[in-house]
């Protein structure tokens, strides 16, 4: 970051225009503001305060990213969900337009956030103007710098963009979203007085890894929003797939959401929803606490997704005594088991050199490959050979 930008940022930070001081950008004002009233108040809804922003939001919000039909968003708002999240990049902007149309007329009773992945102040502010236009609003409640993974990604220039937008009354609060690198990034965001809200991937498959940094951030007054609450493993099992149907029947999706909400440092969540059934199921997470039964379900779920969830870390490279490309084979199996793309998995398998394709794991007494992440390698490779050979 050039010195001049940093200097400009500091100067701009001191020169608060009178109009801006009266705008909706003060956290103190918000702390004491009356909570937004849902259109259809429901006793089953639960609210939490989003850190020092003072925004009162339902503990289950709505991640609009993959929603195809505006009716689901509209219904969620009618039921009383108060937090909706989108981003400039989702569906190349079509998502913001749909969200704006769905929430038209409800803007005053909801908290709305969007994001920009721009790298410069100019581009970020241009993104913000486009977001406001597409969403049909004159301000965002939270504007996130999108998908940051390390402290250096959150540049002074981008912080300056957020502060400029705040002063112009275009955003109320500044945030950063992150999917990885949180143990390093969140402490840096916690220490940054210009960041009001942190939107982070957080789910049961992570165990307690993030709990200390989230607790410290919350203690420092940051609002904490959790995303990817259903765990990355769920990406590999889609509706219509047998494993997915089992999980759904089991209630593991709901248990995953409850696991996230059991942490009082999480102010709200933004699970993706594509239909009314999912919406209704997710609402139940607000009232039911995380139970022993949920714990059992998630333990089983972890067991189920672990074999499907090759992280491509490469630690098994060269470990097979018979020379199998372990990670590749696991991926082919994911095509078949996870996506229902059997022919693609087989096609890839048959492209392997003959001496590799002919190896059978059951001919080894012991497996020399040990996955550090718990993938049951020998069992999975055996299945791949059984399916594809």
């Amino acid at each position, binding site marked *: 970051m050039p010195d001049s930008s940093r200097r400009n940022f500091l100067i701009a930070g001191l020169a608060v225009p009178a109009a801006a001081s009266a705008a909706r950008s003060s956290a103190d004002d918000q702390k004491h503001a009356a909570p937004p009233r849902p259109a259809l108040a429901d006793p089953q809804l639960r609210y939490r305060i989003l850190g020092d922003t003072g925004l009162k939001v339902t503990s289950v919000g709505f991640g609009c*990213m*993959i*929603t*195809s*039909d505006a*009716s*689901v968003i*509209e*219904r969620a708002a*009618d039921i009383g969900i108060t937090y909706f999240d989108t*981003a400039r*990049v*989702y*569906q*190349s*902007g*079509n998502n913001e337009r749909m969200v704006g149309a769905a929430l038209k007329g409800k803007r005053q009773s909801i908290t709305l956030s969007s*994001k920009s*992945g721009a790298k410069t102040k100019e*581009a970020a502010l241009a993104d913000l103007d486009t977001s406001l236009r597409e969403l049909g609003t004159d301000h965002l409640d939270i504007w996130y710098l*999108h*998908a940051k*993974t390390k402290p250096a990604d959150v540049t002074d220039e981008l912080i300056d963009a957020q502060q400029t937008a705040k002063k112009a009354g275009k955003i109320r609060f500044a945030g950063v*979203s992150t*999917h*990885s690198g949180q143990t390093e990034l969140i402490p840096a965001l916690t220490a940054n007085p210009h960041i009001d809200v942190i939107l982070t991937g957080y789910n049961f498959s992570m165990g307690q890894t993030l709990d200390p940094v989230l607790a410290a951030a919350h203690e420092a007054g940051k609002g904490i929003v959790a995303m990817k609450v259903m765990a990355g493993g769920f*990406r*590999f099992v*889609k*509706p*219509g797939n047998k494993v997915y149907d089992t999980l759904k029947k089991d209630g593991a999706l709901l248990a995953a959401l409850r696991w996230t909400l059991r942490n009082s440092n999480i102010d709200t969540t933004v699970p*993706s929803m*594509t*239909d*009314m*059934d*999912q919406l209704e199921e997710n609402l139940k997470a607000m009232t039911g606490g995380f139970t022993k039964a949920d714990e059992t379900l998630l333990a089983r779920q972890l067991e189920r997704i672990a074999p499907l969830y*090759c*992280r*491509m870390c490469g630690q098994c490279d060269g470990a097979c005594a018979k020379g199998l*490309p372990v*990670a*590749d084979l696991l*991926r*082919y199996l*994911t*095509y078949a088991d996870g*996506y229902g*793309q059997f022919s*693609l998995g087989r096609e*890839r398998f048959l*492209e*392997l050199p003959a001496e590799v394709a002919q190896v059978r794991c059951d001919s080894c007494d012991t497996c020399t490959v040990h996955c550090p992440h718990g993938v049951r390698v020998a069992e999975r490779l055996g299945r791949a050979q059984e399916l594809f050979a």
Partner: protein
Amino acid sequence: MKALIAAQALVPAALALLPAQTPTCDLVSGWTRQGAARAYDASNLFEYMDGNAEGYLLYGFVAMHGVTCVEGGDSILIDISEFADADSAYGMFSANRDPRLPAETLGAGGQVTPRRVIFTKGRFYAELAANPDKDHTPALRAFSTALEKLLPGSAAAPAALAWFPAEGQKSARLIPESVLGLRLLKRGYVAEYEFGKAFVVQESSPEAAAAVMDKLRARFNATGDSLQLTDRYLGRLCFIQKGRYILGYANVAEGHDPLALTTALAARLP
């Protein structure tokens, strides 16, 4: 998009597209490659598309290959994504095109703007993004035309699109799950009009479609072969079954007859 981080050395051999399908910068003279080529599959797309990978996975994303090409101070990112089938690739395209802007005759469907081109052909979806902020249309057109020739597969749009009346159509999209926000309607096409939206969902058999119709009757507490009702969110709507298809109109404006519209749509289906 995230920084360009994937090195060619890390690309699993089996993921590589055929050479003819991998984008290269020498497709247009004067352009050279900057940095390493990129390759991702569903398990690591988030490293590149952090924050937007789910949008691809939703449509059955399989793999992506890309390069960054430069000439002078200009750069163009080219990414070719492979999907499970041509319908899914078209679905990705239709979800990302701006329905307010004109379409381009490019592959099975395309759109060209001063800094961006997207198009689909076969089971491939191509994205080209140019920097800095100025009109890059000539270079983008040159690359996309060359790429379109390289990508295998049909340049015809999905047959389902022809079922929807063209007159007054604002957009037509593949919805990969939960058509109309109803989990019962797993996957189908939706076309939007000023007066409402038409939809067609294809089931595996007439029996399967009949079973879904039964569930719709139960859900909406309706009876009869053609379900006509008014829903708080889906407005005036009508569902009917024709063979293995469930089709109809939703959010139909006053002055239009949902059943008549649906009957006319059914006549266009095979």
